[in-house]
Every structure is written in C-alpha cells, then in structure tokens.
C-alpha cells in the first residue's frame, strides 16, 4: 500500500493504527523534554514523576483511542456531545462541588469530574459541525448561530468562575469561524465589539481576585511580597537563566523554592532558568513543529468538518502555549493555564491528547476513503 505522505513501510504500519508518525514524534519529544524539566521542578520527586508518567500513559491511550474513531462518526456525535456538555454545566451550576472558591466539579462518587473539559472538545466540534453543514464561507446567520453555540457554555463556565477556561473555549469556537473563512471585515467588527465588551467584563463579570491578577500584571513591583511575588520571582528565574541556563537541577530559583507553582503553571520558568534561552528555543521549535504538522494535517483533511475541527484544536493548543509562556514571562496576566504536556497536571492533559487523537484521526482516515 503506497502512501503519498508517509512514504515508507514502517510509517505505514503505524498508519494502520491511525497514528501520524511525525506528530507522534513531536509529541514524544515534547513529553520527554517535559518530564526532564518536571523531574527538576518537582524537586526530584519520584512520586510526582510516577503520577505524571501514568497520566501521560492514559493520555496517550486516549489519544490512540480517539484516533481510531472515524471523522464521520465524530461529526455525527458532535452536536449531541455538545448538548450533554451544556446539560452537565447546568448540573454543575446547580449541584456542583465547590473547591478553591469555584464551583467547577461534579462529584460522580468515584471521581471528581469537570464538565468544562468536555466542552473544550465539544464546542469547536459542534460549531464545526454546524458551519460545515453549510457551504463556506458561512453566512452571517450561520456565524451568529456559531457564536451562540460558543456563548452559552462560555457564560456557564465564566460564572463558575473559571475565566481562563471559558475564554479558551470561546476562542476554540471563534477559531472555527475564523478558519471557515468569515470575512476580515466581520473579524474587525467582532474585534471592535470585544474591545467594547472589555469594560463590562472588568466591571461586572470579573471577580476581585481576577481584577487583582490583571492589576498585578500591569505593575508587579507594586506588591512584591503579595500578588506580585509570583511574577517577579518568575522573571528573576527566567532572566537569571541567561543564554545557556544554570544547568539541569541547578536552578536556584526553582530548587530553593523561590519560584511558586514551579511544577505546574510556572514550569516554563524552571526550564528557562535551567536551560536558558537555548532550552526555550528548543521548546518553541518542538511546539512549532507540532503546530505546523497539525495545520498541514487539517489543510489536507478531506471534508470541511475535519479541517475546521483539526485547525481549531491546533490553534487552541497554540493559545495554551502562548498564554502560559506569556503569563510566566510577564507578557500576559496570570490566568492559571498549564504549559501543555509539560506542566504537572491531570484532566486537561487527557483532553489535550484526545484532541491530538482527533487530529490524527483526521490525518489518517482520509486515505481509507480516498483509496477506492
């Protein structure tokens, strides 16, 4: 069986299991580098490493499982999944568990479940299903339909409150609209509307701690021992890494715990400190490789639904990377987004790998259709 893209037999064998080899290699490179940094950032904690490796194993399994599902099947289930997700979000609002000052979880008895994670996948899939069921570029009416589908879960999640996730979910939906070819004029208009919406967000939707985060972002030195502490220590860690870093396990900011949240949200600062600018460039190169590979897969996808879903997932992945690095290095306010596949963390990693599974499915199933 010849293949126009992954031209050799070894790759073909992987392709039988609907695995995209370059993407897998990119992800494995990222996971490997990430584990190395985590080992240092966790204070060489074997326990934490084991938990992360187990989680990565589960996430990889989920990815492979999703890769086996045909895009057509996914498309069919997109809207029902979306409806279930909305129902669960309403349930969270009514009977959800409160933790860390927010109501985000459903207690299923045996585990805590965060429905917003489903929506990370379900929203772009549902919007893509809706847009792709009409011809592209979408008409205004269809666009408004798509916006509405974004808006409902976004508002439900924003009131939990979980501003970071709600914005990411909205962004994922908007990416579908953008990729579907909505006109630049409309994009400019929406951008204008969002700018107008910002004061409302600030005044009515944001909680005090969220406003504080933004204020701290604007001037971290105003409260060096309070809320500015995170970002100041993070910038010290990054800056003191220099060009080639202090060496693996030798970052003083991280090893001596001056850096807060060093194994979760701020792990990029650990990497910057220990591996320097060189390490950062390697990390960005891996991310860029994964993103470009995914965009290529989506542009080669056979139907619009697949293109839009894969493209949206890819750009959402990029947003994760950019927001995390941006907040850790002082470009953006601190919003609690992990660095994908590097930060220590659970559910979001599984969701992310599920998305890569969908992308792989899109990239590998088209040939089977095209073959006859």
């Amino acid at each position: 069986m010849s293949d126009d893209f992954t031209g050799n037999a070894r790759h073909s064998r992987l392709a039988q299991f609907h695995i995209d080899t370059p993407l897998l290699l990119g992800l494995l490179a990222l996971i490997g580098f990430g584990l190395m940094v985590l080992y240092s950032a966790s204070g060489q904690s074997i326990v934490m490493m084991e938990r992360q490796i187990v989680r990565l194993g589960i996430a990889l399994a989920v990815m492979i499982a999703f890769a086996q599902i045909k895009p057509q099947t996914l498309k069919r289930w997109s809207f029902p999944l979306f409806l279930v997700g909305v129902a669960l979000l309403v349930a969270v609002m009514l009977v959800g568990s409160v933790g860390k000052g927010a109501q985000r979880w459903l207690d299923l008895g045996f585990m805590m479940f965060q429905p917003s994670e489903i929506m990370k996948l379900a929203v772009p899939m549902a919007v893509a299903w809706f847009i792709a069921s009409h011809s592209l570029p979408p008409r205004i009416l269809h666009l408004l339909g798509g916006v509405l589908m974004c808006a409902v879960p976004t508002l439900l999640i924003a009131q939990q409150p979980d501003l970071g996730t709600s914005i990411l979910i909205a962004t994922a939906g908007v990416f579908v609209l953008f990729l579907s070819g909505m006109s630049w004029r409309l994009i400019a208009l929406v951008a204008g509307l969002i700018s107008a919406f910002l004061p409302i967000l600030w005044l009515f939707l944001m909680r005090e701690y969220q406003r504080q985060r933004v204020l701290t972002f604007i001037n971290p030195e105003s409260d060096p021992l309070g809320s500015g502490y995170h970002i100041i220590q993070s910038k010290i860690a990054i800056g003191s890494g220099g060009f080639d870093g202090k060496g693996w396990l030798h970052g003083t900011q991280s090893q001596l715990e001056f850096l807060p949240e060093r194994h979760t949200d701020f792990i990029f600062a650990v990497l910057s400190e220990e591996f320097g600018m060189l390490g950062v460039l390697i990390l960005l190169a891996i991310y860029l490789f994964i993103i470009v590979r995914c965009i290529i897969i989506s542009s080669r996808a056979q139907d619009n639904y697949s293109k839009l879903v894969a493209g949206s997932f890819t750009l959402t992945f990029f947003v994760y990377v950019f927001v995390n690095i941006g907040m850790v290095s002082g470009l953006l306010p601190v919003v609690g987004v992990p660095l994908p596949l590097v930060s220590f963390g659970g559910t979001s990693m599984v969701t992310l790998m599920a998305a890569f599974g969908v992308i792989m499915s899109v990239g590998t199933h088209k040939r089977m259709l095209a073959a006859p």
Partner: protein
Amino acid sequence: MFKKRVAIQDFAAESRLFNQRAVFAILFVVLMFSVIVFNQYQLQIVSYQDYQTRSEGNRIKVVPLAPNRGLIYDRSGILLAENRPVFSLELIPEQINDMAGTLAELATLIEFTAEQQDAFLKQVRAQRRFNSITLKEQLDDQEVAILAANQHRFPGVTVEARLSRHYPFGDLFTHALGYIGKINTRELQQLELDGEAPNYAASRDIGKIGLERFYQRELHGTMGYQEVEVNNRGRLIRVLRSVPAVSGQNIQLGLDVGLQLTAQQILKQHRGAIVAIDPRDGAVLAFYSNPSYDANLFVHGISSANYNELLNSRDRPLINRVTQGVYPPASTIKPHLALLGLESRTITTNTKIWDPGYYTLPNSDHRFRDHIRWGHGWVDIYTAITKSCDTFFYDMGIKLGIDRISEYMHKMGFGEKTGIDILEESSANMPSRGWKRARHNQPWYPGDTVPLSIGQSYWTTTPLQLAVATTPLLNRGKLVTPHMVTAFNNGETTAANILPPRQVLDVENEQNYAVVMDTMHQTVSTLGGTAHRAFIGAQYSSAGKTGTAQLAAIAQDAKYDADAIDERLRDNAMYLGYAPYDKPTILVVVALENAGGGGSNAAPLARQLMDYYFTAGVNRDE
C-alpha cells in the same frame, strides 16, 4: 448531477479559503512565537546581569558569626570567667506574623514572666527585624524538649544553644571582673560612633562594668561570617563560604584566687575593702570589696526585684569600695608627709617637738587634739610614725603649708585616678587653695592644714589610691600604674601587659626614703608600734602604718566613746602595710568602715592576708 458538480466546485474554493486561513494562522503563530523569543531575549540576554544579581540576592545570605569571648584566668591559671553553653528561647520577629498570638501560645507551653516578655518586646523594637531575640534564657531540659516537640507550630521560634558567660566564683571577683549583659540602645549607638558596630553584628553581650568593660575590645574578638544558601523560607541549605570568627583574647590577671578567698573571708564581718598590689610593677594581687554580689545575676538580665534589693541595700554592695570607696586616709599618710618633710628639709631625723596632747595655732586657743590625751612628750619622726603622734604632724603640716603638701601629694598620686584597668574609679580628693576656692568659695585657712596633716578633713583617698600612692615611697620616687591584667593570650602567643613605673618625685636624698621605710618597719617591729601586736609571730618582716579616721566631730572637751555613737558614725579602721620590709613584693591596704581603731581592727586583717601570701607562695618568682 448538478448538485454534485456544485459541491466539487465548492470544495475547491473552500479548500483554497481554508488554506489561506491556515497559512495566515501559521504566520500568526510564528509572529507570536517571535514575540516570546524577543521577550526571552530581553529577559535572558539584555537584563541577564540584573536578574542574575537578584537571583543571587534571593538565595545568598550572609550570616555573621559571633566570636567566642576571651576567657579570664587568675595568676595561676584558674578560670574566673568562662563561656558555657545554655539553651535559650529565641524569636525572629521578621518570621512571625502575629507576635501577640505567638507569645500567648508559647505561654501555654512554658513559663516566662511578664518582665521577661516586656524586656523581649523592648528588644524587638530596638533591634533589626531579622535578628533573633531572646525571650527566655537558661531553659531547662524539659523546656527544651517541649519546645522541640512543638517546633512546627511556631515558625520563627527557635531554641538556640549559645555560649553564655559564667563566673564560677560568683561574688568573689565581681568588683574586679564586672560582668557582661545585653547590648543596650545607648551602647549600640556608641559602637556605631566608634565604627565598631559591624563587628558586633552577631554579638549580643557587652562588658558592662569592671574588666569585662575595660577590655571589651580585647575580649570580644573579631566577627566571622558565613555566606549561606537559603531557600524561600530562609532555611539554610548549604554553606558557600565561611570565614571563622576570631575569638577574643584570653586575659590573665595578677589576682590570686587564694588571696581573694582570704580577703573575702577576713572581710566577712565588715563593710570595707582590701586591696593588695605588687609595689614593684603595680600588678593587683587581691581586690575585694565587701559586701559583694553574684555577677551571674546580671548576665542573663537581672530581675527588678533582685536589682532593687542590691540598689537599695543600706550596705551598698554595688559600690566598688576598692576604687570608689572614698575614705579619709587618716594617719596612714603620715609616712608620705614625712618624706616631704625630710626632702624639703622642713624636718630632719633629729627634729624633736614637745607634744602636750594637743596643738594650737599661734594666736588661737583652739586645741587640735592628739589621739593620746596626755601627749607623747618629746617626739621625733620615728616616734611620730610608730606611735602615730598627731601633734608632730600638725606642727610639720603648718610648717610645710598647704601648697607644698598639695603639690607633693598630687605627685605621689593622691587626688588622682590611679589609671587601674577598670573605669569605675574615683579620684577622691587631695585639696588645695584653688580647690577650696572653687568648691566652697572660701580661702584656705591654716586651721584647714592642721587636720589635713593627719589625713582628715578634706583629704580623702580610695583604698587603691592609698596603696598606689605609697609606691613612690618604696620605689625611690617611682609611681606604678596599677593593673589587674598581667598578660594577653590570643590562643597562640602571650603578650605580657607591662606598665613601667613613672618617676614622679625628684629624689633629694635617697636616705630619706630609707628613713621613712624604716619608721614604717618600726611601727610593726618595735614594741609600742601601733601595728606591733597585730604582727607578733609573723614569719616575714613587714612594715606598715595604721590609721583611724574619725567620722563624727567630737566636741572640744568631750571624749570619743564608741558605744555612745551610732554604729555608722564610728571610726573607720585603716591599715597600710607591705612586706618584706626591705624588699617589698606585696603592698596591702585594708579599709574597714565603722570598725574602730586601725591598729587593732585593720592591721590583723592585713596580717592574715600577708600570712596567706607568704605561706601559699603566691608570688612564685620570689
């Protein structure tokens, strides 16, 4: 068919549209990554030095190391001041958010007084926030265990083992050694003025009085420091660099524990002082003021109850009677005046005067009494000193005049600080015309000179001053500087503390010195000498002069009756003695408050001290 064609057309256009957007997305991603790279460049390359410095500042702390205080030894090497480890409860204010709450919780675990708490809070205000401040000292084993078990509940609260000063002999050396205590705000300011404050960054104590204060610089040593790496909670991770502290110098004293114990024992019944020096070089051999007190009370902060008791005691134990006890020298200064009389040729060894039991100035009928009511008859210088004839000295004093007496006595050291190595010293008073004019705004009358000639009225000395001012008599006009410290030892080399005697008197006739020393010898050696009885049977030769200072004025024809007057107004007993008489190595002054006659009360105590000195062989090089 049509539908399908349209779909194919749409698909191509849609695909192109998507690809445009995809290319745009990739460009956008690259642009955003470039922003990150640019920002990283700013942070990691451009501002590297700045962040590097701040990173080092985060992790590296310089911890000062206190030097060990120098030890103090007696002349034979017995420890008089040592450093012992004690456990103390300390708090670092910077690490404690709720000081009141922490103190309240600590109070449920161990006992500390409100006074300790107040002192602690005072220190908290005075010291820097990151300094560790003591709440309670000298924890017992149980308290240490309780605190260790509850350590986790109290961040910023630690049990520290520190070296603490201890004076094993308690009250025996207090007035000589003094003691150390916490550095107070005023002392801190002084250290800053002297530029010494940096050297005290880790030090908590400072010499308050006595030798501990005088030799503070030598005893303190030089601070060391450690550059340590700490984590975000300030916990020490590792030591990067260490410069050890240099311990203070050990000092050796001329004081002897045995002599000192003897002095304490024989003074037990009296308020007073005993001082013994080596008249050749000024080394102090014994230095005891009674009553004394335990110096250890002050080291850990004396309680106000204890302090008030000491402060308000009628016996005034805080006064250092050796250097601050101001007593009329009485007849003990007769030898000194005799030397002036001889050197100035006012008298010779052949001069004799008639003593009817009193002296009157020309054109006056006021009688200055002799202590013998019926008089000594014909008296020469020998009799005048051995039997302590007052009339002879009244007469000689008037002939000498206040100016010559004052000048000569000042030269010998009267009315001057001796320069001993403690700062608590009075210069007492050797009066002059100028002094009386300044002090009482009155001219000097001949009637002032008369009692002055027997060491009364305005003339006062301290016991130490009397001893030191006697050394020119024994050293052909050379005055010693008394000093307790005889050697410094920095752990490796020993440096002797030698203060050479100064020539203060012009020697007219060496023979005069021999005459005066001879009269003092006869005071002890001849039957009828005032100190003869006290030294009967002594195994060594000695010389001396008794003194009995009258504190209450007695009416012209009344008789002194010890029983009839208040105990605190009874005569002071004085004795000045040295031995061996021809080659003195020890010079003793005994001053007893309200004890009565010097010959019968003070001289026997000097005898006991000298007995010990010679039998125990204190001065080994003899």
